[in-house]
């Protein structure tokens, strides 16, 4: 895909001279850090999807709400687009800058404002790291449940914008289930509180809408999260299988037994090898797949559930079942899974991480499809899978220095996502659409549905200044994309103009 904003397909942008915008912002918000020299801008040219890079016009690093407000008001008046960035760990190019835009970096808002153990809530600024919240809550025996693998680095503001998940979200929910309230600045610089510290708020559920909106509807400036009591105990079972399909079926069997594990993860042979080489997690190198099943809660229940799960796994044909003997071994089992991406990164010069979701029953079919695509393209694919909730992370291995491999990896990735959509799933479970999957949105949604998304956007940002070119494609883009992907000889969106 051409990553550059394409006005022909993504909509027109106002053209402004960089020095004019710089002067204007320096005057309007004199005390705010504003980077403009190329060497200062360079570190911000990409997020976690490093294959896509664009140098922003300017980078703003505000420290106060007044500065953010002042910046937004001026950008709105000038018609200059604003891309918000948290910690920049996003994997879909959501925080990819725009050449003609300001990159608004929220990382200096890094204060935990309060932790209230009796109300089990914490108020935090958007730049606070995900893990820092649980660390601050730990002295009270509490924690913040959603735990993306990037939790040591990613910001809670970015989590809200992506509706981030983690390995524990089948049982404990996604970000949207664990955020009580957010404060937002609109593109016009108006302040809004959505949600409440009570369990509901009057009016439409705009809090739900804000979660996962990828910086398209407003800038999140403060978040109140729910804290949970730390489970009394957590135990993890690791089961090996000589066949990926058997492992997939075992997942369904555990849930059919009435158990909702705290975490239920699957890795295939290549991912196992990568993780084992990297962190020595104690994974079986001869297995075709492993399942990690964590059971947490009150000690006595967890023991009962471990027995049940063990029986289910045996019946499902596990070749070996191992229970972590202690906390250290449990941490080791998880370290392999949580480091799976960087581990695969060590095996190959580059890798491309996909994020499709499917109904779990479709797993064997989709895995076969992925294997066929891998064979056909000659690119190896390692599979890491939030198995409990049907969220797949196929990692496509390639070498960007080899002519044509990036494009090939993108093509394979696109086809994997289309497999997921065809299986009744989605192109993204937690990493977001961003810039990366903008074309695949056209396979998941019809033009009328996309028009409704545009209507929602127009309600908050009619001038389309917040993160343009991300998340929701224009109909013109879908027409162009459709022209490249003619299914069954039917041209999608025949009524739209083509370029």
């Amino acid at each position, binding site marked *: 895909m051409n990553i550059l904003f394409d006005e022909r397909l993504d909509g027109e942008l106002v053209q402004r001279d960089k020095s004019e915008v710089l002067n204007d912002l320096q005057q309007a918000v004199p005390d705010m850090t504003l980077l403009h020299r190329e060497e200062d801008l360079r570190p911000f040219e990409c997020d976690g999807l490093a294959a896509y890079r664009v140098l922003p016009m300017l980078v703003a690093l505000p420290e106060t709400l007044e500065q953010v407000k002042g910046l937004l008001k001026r950008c709105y008046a000038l018609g200059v687009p604003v891309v918000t960035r948290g910690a920049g760990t996003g994997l879909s190019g959501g925080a990819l800058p725009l050449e003609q835009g300001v990159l608004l970096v929220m990382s200096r808002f890094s204060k935990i404002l309060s932790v209230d153990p*009796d*109300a*089990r*809530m914490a108020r935090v600024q958007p730049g606070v790291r995900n893990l820092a919240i649980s660390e601050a809550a730990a002295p*009270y025996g509490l924690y913040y449940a959603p735990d993306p693998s990037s939790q040591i680095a990613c910001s809670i503001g970015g989590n809200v914008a992506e*509706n981030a*998940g983690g390995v524990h979200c089948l049982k404990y929910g*996604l970000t949207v*289930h664990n955020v009580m309230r957010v404060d937002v600045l*609109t593109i016009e610089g108006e302040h*809004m509180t*959505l949600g*409440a*510290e*009570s*369990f*509901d*708020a*009057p*009016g*439409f*559920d*705009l809090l*739900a*809408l804000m979660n*996962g*909106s990828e910086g*398209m*509807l407003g800038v999140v400036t403060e978040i109140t999260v729910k804290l949970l*009591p730390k*489970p009394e105990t957590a135990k993890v079972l690791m089961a090996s299988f000589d066949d990926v399909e058997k492992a997939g079926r075992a997942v*369904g069997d555990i849930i*059919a037994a009435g*158990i909702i594990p705290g975490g239920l993860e699957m890795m295939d042979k290549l991912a196992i090898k990568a993780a084992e080489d990297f962190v020595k997690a104690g994974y079986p190198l001869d297995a075709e797949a492993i399942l990690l099943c964590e059971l947490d*809660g*009150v000690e*006595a*229940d967890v023991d*009962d559930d471990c027995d049940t799960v063990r029986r289910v796994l045996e019946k499902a044909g596990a070749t070996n079942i191992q229970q972590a003997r202690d906390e250290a071994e449990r941490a080791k089992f998880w370290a392999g899974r949580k480091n799976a991406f960087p581990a695969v990164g060590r095996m190959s010069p580059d890798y491309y991480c996909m994020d499709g*979701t499917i*109904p779990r029953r479709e797993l064997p079919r989709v895995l076969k499809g992925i294997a066929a695509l891998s064979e056909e393209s000659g690119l190896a694919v390692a599979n890491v899978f939030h198995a409990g*909730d*049907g969220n797949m992370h196929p990692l496509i291995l390639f070498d960007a220095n080899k002519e044509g491999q990036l494009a090939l990896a993108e093509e394979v990735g696109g086809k994997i996502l289309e497999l997921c959509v065809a299986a009744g799933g*989605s192109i*993204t*479970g*937690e990493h977001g*659409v961003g810039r990366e*999957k903008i074309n695949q949105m056209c396979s*998941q949604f*019809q033009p*009328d*549905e*996309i028009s*409704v*998304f545009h209507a*929602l*956007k127009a*309600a908050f940002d009619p001038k389309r200044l917040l993160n343009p070119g991300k*998340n929701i494609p224009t109909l013109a883009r879908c027409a162009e994309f459709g022209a490249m992907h003619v299914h069954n000889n039917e041209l999608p969106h025949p009524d739209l103009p083509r370029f």
Partner: protein
Amino acid sequence: MTELAMHAADRDIADTLCEQVRSAYDARTPLRIVGGDTRAFYGRPVEGQALQMAEHSGIVSYDPVELIVTVRAGTRLSALQAALAEKHQMLGFEPPMFGEASTIGGAVATGLSGPRRPWAGAARDFVLGTRIITQEGKLLRFGGEVMKNVAGYDLSRMMAGAQGTLGVLTDISFKVLPIPNATHSLRLSLNLNDALKKLAELGRQPLPITAAAWHNGELFLRLEGGKSSVQATQERLGGESLDPSFWTSLRDHSHPFFQLNDGQALWRLSLPPNTAPLNLDIAETDIFYDWAGSQRWVKTALDADTLRAACKAVGGHATCYTPHAQGGAVEPFTPLNAVVEKYHRNLKAELDAHGIFNPGRLYAAF
């Protein structure tokens, strides 16, 4: 599907419904969306041509292993619950049933959740996807039948609680949960302050509590989870055992508390967890604390402004459950602040330009 059809009549009238919406849009005729019509009392009255949803019923798909069910909006809540119970599963949000005719569409549109809410989540937390009829009468799909899906804006969850003012729900997919293996309800004699203190203290511990209420000198608790932990917690907390129908009576307002005296209106106060008793002139016997104190049912003749000011001061809000005619508030829902209201109006204008969907149900302006 025959097995599912036993529970709810299998009828798909989406095309007819779309047709009705299209003509309403063309003629600019307001519609009053009607499920089981059991909650007509709730919210502001709507003048409009009835759009009857009850015929659009049936369980479209249900795979207990996936923990996902998809139902047509007119399906009776009781039918859906029976189908789930057969597989030892349930709707996690414990929706109130204000009558046998209650539909799942009405339950989601009103967005209300039962005693389990603080521990399990609200109606919107379990909504995975919807089919919606838009103002132009088009049937569109948002979200889906998968646990995780962040493609596009989360329109489905926003429909929960919008009371049909943004579109018509025709199909809804839910995440469902297994029915807990063990359950035990108990009552303890405790005064209000001690009860609230105890609830805060228990709340910080990993205990299998899924409902907590206080009324008239008694703390009521429900424990649910694994057999071992329920038993251990039961032994630890002691108290007398409580009939579980207590929770249904609280959920559905059939508990005698909900009988109003002359001049009293019924209010729901939604407050942050661990909020101290409000300083209002209301007899303790006229307050029922649910959700460990976060949801308080109040019978009072006090005016809306007084109640709302007290709630606002602690970060909450108040909803009136009795119509104006019976001494309730003209505006049942807490008015929005100016900026939030602006974006509500913008949204309504985008999704329902001619005001055909339940106009005035939430607020006079939209």
